[in-house]
């Protein structure tokens, strides 16, 4: 059935084939919707009780709130001090992007396409940064930052963040560059392009999906970072938003769930919104990358 349809479509000269798969498509789509629900429902749960008073929550945690009570949000909002934190968080996030993505893209490109014993070794040396657990590194990192007077500064925060992110994104970029066909590089060289031109004009744009992914995820990661911000920042005017929210969260014992959850929502909301906006961008970027072939 689908074959004749396709052949008919080709005959009609259409380039985009709308393939109908019948039952398998319906079943699969249903499954996907179900799985998506599994992902979303836990995220929605906190909304059931942030609008409740503490007592109402204790008695009926999962019933719908009797009346919508904004107190918890207001208190959490006040404690978070958006005015101070937002600017700091933005600086840290943008700084992390600028410091993480270019080195990772370059290193990923080299280790993917310029294979030699040296670059393989370089790859593993870079990856070692990913193998080390964060808690282990905190104390020496702090000592070192104090020694070079980087502590309690915003650049002293996003530069180590970049150092943590580079191994991971080098790996990802490497996989994307590997997926590009060899002929492209050869063609470029034959056309007389040097190494850097090949990279900037041809290879990098084709690895757009990776770059868009990296932009989004590094930004979100830097935005929601807690451990490094906690250890490396000491002056209140430099605190990031997430640090304040996390402090608010841990200042309230688990018995004050509605307040706790409202702070959690405030902390997660920016990243969720950013992600949803950014993801449409990813889809556009990947489709564009594929069509260029």
């Amino acid at each position, binding site marked *: 059935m689908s074959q004749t349809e396709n052949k008919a479509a080709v005959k009609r000269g259409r380039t985009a084939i709308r393939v109908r*798969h019948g039952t398998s498509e319906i079943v699969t789509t249903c499954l*996907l919707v179900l799985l998506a629900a599994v992902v979303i429902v836990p995220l929605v749960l906190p909304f059931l009780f942030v609008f409740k008073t503490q007592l109402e929550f204790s008695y009926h945690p999962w019933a719908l709130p009797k009346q919508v009570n904004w107190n918890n949000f207001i208190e959490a909002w006040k404690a978070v001090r958006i005015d101070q934190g937002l600017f700091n968080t933005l600086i840290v996030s943008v700084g992390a992007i600028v410091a993480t993505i270019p080195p990772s893209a370059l290193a990923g490109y080299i280790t993917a396409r310029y294979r030699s014993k040296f670059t393989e070794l370089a790859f593993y040396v870079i990856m070692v940064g990913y193998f080390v657990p964060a808690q282990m590194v905190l104390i020496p990192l702090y000592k070192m930052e104090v020694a070079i007077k980087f502590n309690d500064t915003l650049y002293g925060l996003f530069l180590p963040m970049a150092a943590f992110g580079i191994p991971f994104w080098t790996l990802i970029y490497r996989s994307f560059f590997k997926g590009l066909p060899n002929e492209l590089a050869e063609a470029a060289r034959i056309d007389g392009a040097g190494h850097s031109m090949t990279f900037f004009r041809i290879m990098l744009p084709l690895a757009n999906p990776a770059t868009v992914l990296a932009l989004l995820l590094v930004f979100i990661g830097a935005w929601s970072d807690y451990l490094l911000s906690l250890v490396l920042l000491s002056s209140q005017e430099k605190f990031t938003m997430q640090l304040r929210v996390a402090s608010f969260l841990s200042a309230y014992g688990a018995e004050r769930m509605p307040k706790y959850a409202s702070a959690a929502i405030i902390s997660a909301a920016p990243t969720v919104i950013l992600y949803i906006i950014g993801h449409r961008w990813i889809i556009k970027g990947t489709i564009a990358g594929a069509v260029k072939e």
Partner: protein
Amino acid sequence: MARCLEKGAGHIILFRGGRYVSDSKGRKRIRDRRRGPFVFLCLLPAFLFLAIFLYYPIEETFRIAMTKSTGMGPETYVGFDNYVKLFSNEEFLTGLLHVFQWAFWSVIIQLPLAFLIAFALTYYRNKLTGPLRSIYYLSNVLPSAITAMIGRFIYAPKSGVISSLANTLGWKWLGAIDWLGDPNLAFWSVFALATWAYTGFPIIYLMARIEQIPNEIREAAELDGATGWHYASRIVIPDLKYPFQILAVLCTVGSLKLFDLPYILTTGGPGNATVTLGITLYRHGFINWNYGLAAAIGVVISLLSLGFTIAQFSLGREKGGESL
């Protein structure tokens, strides 16, 4: 500039002072003398960052692992004593077992699941799958403290979602299950939560890679009458060999380092039922003030990760993986 006559034709070409060489596979490759500096310059930024911010801490960790110290006071050199202590410590060995279990099951469950979802989302493009693509990563976007909080809501006895649901439905057996308190079940409860949270990244990563496959190939397969399965197994999966390897590495190393979720949910308990190397590290370093021992654990984690990564990528090469 000399131009080539045909793309890929094996003619002699002048190229900025370079010349043709045959590589190990007998293909002709152009060797270019300006390659060296380019390679060096490209790797330099990454190295700089890592050298300044990570290599000193890593080196310190290795050094402290050979000492007995509280992190604040004097250090006494004890050689490999810490490592010996670790391997006879029940909590460490349990943690080791747990992270291996975790890594194994993560790879077995997350990767195929992620692939199936990613493939389905790219294969079936209808009005629903479009918006669905954005949703799967949402759980990954949350900081781990919040993921753990959600886990507590779901698993708490009596007041948690599952218990309340069980009460309303009258399913007493469901409400009686002690998700986080039963030593046999706790590990799986935390694992299920982690799968919910962490599968998002493999999904969008695989989606992005699958999209890199040119449309023509897919259309050609359709015309040849390939079913979805055929297309997946003959074309897509082999193309994704390297991404799968990467995901396996990420899953495994992530499991080795695992700390946040089990610590916040159950502090490694009950007893040692959900303890991981990361938790043991935190305990010894930040609670017991046995900083040398904690550093030794950090070294073990790093070496295990390194070993696994090398093994993973060499395996690929042995099988003649062109993608390597």
